[in-house]
């Protein structure tokens, strides 16, 4: 790999770092620190329950279907690696097993194809 000269504009980067740091703390602190023992509305908790399973797939899907490494063309090793990761994750409920299975599929197919 050629050494990256560019990186990010420092102002942008530090804005992101500061915003993320403050925002993440606020999200963690809002209930335990501010709400204390008061009850919270059901509808809010009901939506928060699905954040991880909604946001992370939304982030990953375009990366799987249109990978940047292939210039956005559908890529068989990457697609199958993603499917194997999901399959093993569902079958074993084990994060590490899923990661290793997905990585093995990706490397195996990249080597073979």
């Amino acid at each position, binding site marked *: 790999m050629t050494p990256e000269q560019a990186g990010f504009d420092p102002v942008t980067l530090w804005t992101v*770092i500061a915003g*993320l740091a403050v925002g*993440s703390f606020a999200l963690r602190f809002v209930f335990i*620190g501010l709400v204390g023992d008061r009850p919270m509305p059901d509808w809010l908790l009901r939506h928060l329950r699905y954040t991880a*399973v*909604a946001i992370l797939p939304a982030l990953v899907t375009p990366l799987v279907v249109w990978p940047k490494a292939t210039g956005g063309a559908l890529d068989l090793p990457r697609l199958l690696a993603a499917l194997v990761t999901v399959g093993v*994750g569902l079958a074993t409920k084990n994060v590490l097993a899923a990661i290793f299975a997905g990585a093995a599929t990706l490397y195996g197919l990249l080597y073979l194809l």
Partner: protein
Amino acid sequence: MAFSTTNSYYWKGFRDGAPFMLVAGPFGMLFGVLATEAGLKLTETLVLTATVFAGAAQLTALQLMQENAPTFIVLASALAVNLRLAMYSASLTPFLGGAPMWQRAFAAYLTVDQSYACSIVRFETEPDLTIPQRMGYFLGTVTPVATAWYSFTLIGALLGARIPESWALDFALPIAFLAMVTPMLRTSAHVVAALVSITVALLAAGLPYNLGLMVAGLAGMIAGARMELVLRKKGLWT
């Protein structure tokens, strides 16, 4: 006496949290490597990882910055990934809400997937624990995880650019996230949320400013919550 039982709950937590070093270590290393490859300096990577202390959000921000998304979108999307931490905070509040403010602030910072998952199980199965015992346990669970996270981020950042392109690290993030998400698909409401999110992410991929992520995430959350209500009405929610 009170101190010694608090202490013993710290070590119980430590033992329960220790296996998660196997997840936090590689994940931290991945972040360190990708951050360095994206052009972040060592201090920038370490400050980010120490202040934000949430791997998925950090990787999301990194990914979107590399796609040149506007700063507002980077922040909104990464914080959306962290909305689940607000849910953890809400869920821990009945158990830790009576602790002194400085301890609650400290616990807030240390709320991550692993410390939450261990603690909520322990607190629910042992309802008679005192608040100091709960705090001790919580702190115990996160100690090995945080140690692994910080030190492996550093190692990854130092290795950084030395990792060759043939390792296809571009795909490490999708694999890591998919592996994290699939064990969370416990109910059909979770499955519906994920499927709606995937579908909308594909349909909305053309939206400007990477807004597709936010739209798909919100659609998935609403779909999951709706499905939960349907299941509750039918008496199928457990």
